[in-house]
């Protein structure tokens, strides 16, 4: 189950994400994620993928189901990685699009102080419009915030 603290991070603070898959030959592929949501059961997440990052995604997921999604808050660098198994993919719904728009506004707001002269459309375009929703079951969560604890598994907790 995804802890409440991490759900709040995902829903209120995180502003950038990326997904990783691999094919049958163990060649890794990346897919920009323009938005995300947590299932009501707190065990699943949905990642929204823009059109240009769809190649290799569904064929890899249908072949082996392995998915890793890293979600970060920039510029604080608080970061978590969610590893899990593909459940299904579906068309993007209107509510999904609104989630992506909220995340885009968060991202642009966070980047603006560092890129004061960047054109608004360039920053907005970084968080592309979603083309596909991928639902997956979260099996493991890792802390990836830079520092000594980076890489430690949070869920399921490591038994002492």
């Amino acid at each position, binding site marked *: 189950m995804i802890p409440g603290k991490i759900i709040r991070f995902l829903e209120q603070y995180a502003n950038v994400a990326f997904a990783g898959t691999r094919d049958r030959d163990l060649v890794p592929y990346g897919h920009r994620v323009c938005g995300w949501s947590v299932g009501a059961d707190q065990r699943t997440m949905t990642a929204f993928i823009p059109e240009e990052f769809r190649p290799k995604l569904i064929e890899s997921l249908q072949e082996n189901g392995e998915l890793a999604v890293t979600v970060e808050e920039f510029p604080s660098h608080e970061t978590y990685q969610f590893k899990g198994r593909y459940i299904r993919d579906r068309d993007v719904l209107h509510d999904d699009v609104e989630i992506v728009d909220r995340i885009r506004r968060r991202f642009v707001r966070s980047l603006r102080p560092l890129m004061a002269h960047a054109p608004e459309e360039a920053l907005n375009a970084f968080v592309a*419009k979603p083309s596909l929703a991928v639902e997956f079951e979260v099996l493991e969560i890792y802390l990836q915030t830079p520092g000594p604890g980076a890489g430690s598994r949070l869920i399921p907790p490591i038994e002492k």
Partner: protein
Amino acid sequence: MRLTHLPPEIRPVLENGIPAVMVTCSADGTPNTTVISQVYYVDETHAALSFQFFSKTIRNVRENPRAYVCLADLRGHASWVLQLEFQRSETEGPVFDTMDMQIEAIASMTGMSGIFKLRAADIYRVLSVEKLPYPTWTGASSDDQASTGA
């Protein structure tokens, strides 16, 4: 267009200070996605990645040398996708020294001094390079109808 070398126009992207994303895969088939602060141009067919604390990535590329890197090119309105193959790790020499200085500069700019610390420069062979232009920005998505998926 897919290239097999690093073109000159990618060099400013490597130096733009925007973190890149790296995907690797363990020998048992589990992908791993991580943010990396620096991709360093070695020559047309080699790049170096900073080895700081992402130990799962370090383990993965030693088990399975293939790696995927995505760079953000906000000025060029594009993502750059690199397919790489791990070759060796360097803990001294000109590549290591230059990366060490750059890491320190990035750390001080982002308030991460004392946390970012270069442990090694990992050298990768470039297998392919692809530029993916961002779609033209036409306003917030929710102004449009939701797009269709698969």
